[in-house]
């Protein structure tokens, strides 16, 4: 815990701290668990081709892969899953597996294989963030890695061509998004009121898809229709990644709002009670005779 934690990742754009899904997962988890990371974007350095991103450096230890990094952070006592039950921990593993199997191929395809998106958005972005002469090499390398991954994992015979695999992976991804939406329901985070590692993974996968300005994407429009998932992403961005980076005020504001709500409820209740008492009084027999008397008195006066 004494050694400083340094994270190497791709830089940010489109309102996100990083455009790379796996780096976003680690960044989100570090915010949730309160770990202080110094973020070193590898943009414009030769690390764009040498480093495997994301990478966590802590003293002498070098950890790669989001799952390993999260495990390392947990061992350093930065644990956002502290309050989860054993069953919720099991659910976390299952949902992460679902994301990896069903959503990741479609995301890779949307960003790296789809010709329009790749040439208009992804390649210019990554090329502009790589130093010369790597800007010719880095994007195409990543694109071919993405394509081979999709074909090797999903393109079993007879689906050898990418066009046949496309239909399947996009329908799987849409189903996965629907399943996530059902699971999230109306709650703020997947397990109660505080975010956990599952929220970090879902955020990391969904946020680039949500925020990137993709020229053509049916998957993005499908995601935008699922309101609870888009609110989930916006909420995490607003609470944990806003410009001033406040980590304490939001809880305070929440308690203030809660107190205000309670006060208003009490006042309303009291005024309701008063009204009821008023009605009861008006309806009571004593009051009626009193009014009859006063009416009688008035009529005698007017006579």
């Amino acid at each position, binding site marked *: 815990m004494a050694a400083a934690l340094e994270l190497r990742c791709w830089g940010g754009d489109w309102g996100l701290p990083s455009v790379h899904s796996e780096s976003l997962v680690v960044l989100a988890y570090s915010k949730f668990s309160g770990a202080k990371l110094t973020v070193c974007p590898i943009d414009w350095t030769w690390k764009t081709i040498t480093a495997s991103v994301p990478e966590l450096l802590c003293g002498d230890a070098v950890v790669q*892969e989001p799952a390993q990094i999260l495990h390392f952070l947990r061992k350093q006592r930065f644990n956002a899953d502290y309050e989860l039950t*054993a*069953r919720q*921990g*099991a*659910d976390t*593993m*299952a*949902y992460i*597996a*679902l994301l*990896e*199997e*069903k959503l990741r191929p479609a995301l890779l395809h949307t960003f790296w294989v789809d010709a329009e998106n790749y040439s208009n958005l992804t390649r210019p972005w990554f090329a502009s963030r790589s130093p010369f002469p790597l800007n010719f090499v880095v994007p195409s390398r990543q694109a071919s890695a993405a394509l*081979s*991954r999709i074909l*090797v*994992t999903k393109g*079993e*015979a*007879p689906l050898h061509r990418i066009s*046949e695999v496309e*239909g*399947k992976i996009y*329908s799987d991804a849409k*189903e996965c998004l629907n*399943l*996530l939406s*059902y*699971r999230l*329901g109306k709650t703020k985070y997947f397990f109660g009121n505080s975010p956990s590692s599952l929220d970090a993974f879902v955020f990391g996968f969904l946020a680039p898809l949500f925020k990137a300005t993709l020229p053509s994407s049916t998957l993005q429009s499908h995601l935008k229709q699922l309101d609870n998932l888009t609110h989930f992403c916006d909420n995490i961005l607003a609470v944990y990644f806003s410009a001033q980076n406040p980590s304490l005020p939001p809880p305070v504001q929440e308690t203030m709002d809660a107190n205000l709500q309670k006060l208003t409820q009490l006042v309303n209740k009291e005024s309701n009670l008063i009204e009821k008492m008023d009605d009861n009084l008006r309806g009571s027999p004593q009051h009626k005779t009193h009014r009859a008397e006063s009416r009688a008195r008035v009529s005698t006066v007017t006579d």
Partner: protein
Amino acid sequence: MSLAAEAFVSQIAAAEPWPENATLYQPLKEDQILLSDCASSLAVQAYLRMCGLPVQVVCRANAEYMSPSGKIPFIHVGNQVVSELGPIVQFTKAKGHSLSDGLDDVQRAEMKAYMELVNNMLLTAELFIQWCDDATAAEISRPRYSSPYSWPLNNILAYQKQWEVRRKMNAIGWGGKTLEQVYEDVSQCCQALSQRLGTQPYFFSKQPTELDALVFGHLFTIITTRLTSGELAERIKGFSNLLSFCRRIEQTYFEDKSSST
């Protein structure tokens, strides 16, 4: 299959009831079949038995090549051929038999997530142990896989399959893992399954679903198969509720089979 073709096939499937002569094809049981294929095949058999659909198991040496997707097992029903558990579940659903109808949306999401967990972890681990561990590959997998064929075809096919599986492991990031790490991943996966199962008879309380069939297929096969090292089986036997789960399903659905042996 493309989406339109799939929709077309399910339309046709819905038209006919389940015939008596449905067959399930898998590689030769004694000599050829490997751990991962055996697990998948047992999962499908368990699922069909849970649905109450009769199916005959036929062993063929070239089952892998007959399958439309190259994966084992596949079923031949009427004039259609469907392979792998996912499409088979959809196919039986089109015919009106489904185990997961009683689940609500959140439970169905959980079920699919856990099925992906099993596929992602257990199946990948089985493939890794079979083909990426040199000892197992040389002693068990290659000889068994190529046993129906004569030289030099057996060498060529075995090495081709090994190369394919290793390529896939590299693509998904398992290429650099050691055997210990894989055993550890399997333990974690089983722990997650064990915690999800708890003390219930099946994963979604009283009725079995396709998740139960899948988990049974994999766990039962791992426990009852002899590999070069028994560590994998030992790790699974450490979870008593999973063991009793497997025994329960075996007794309920495979009783006639085990009593005849």
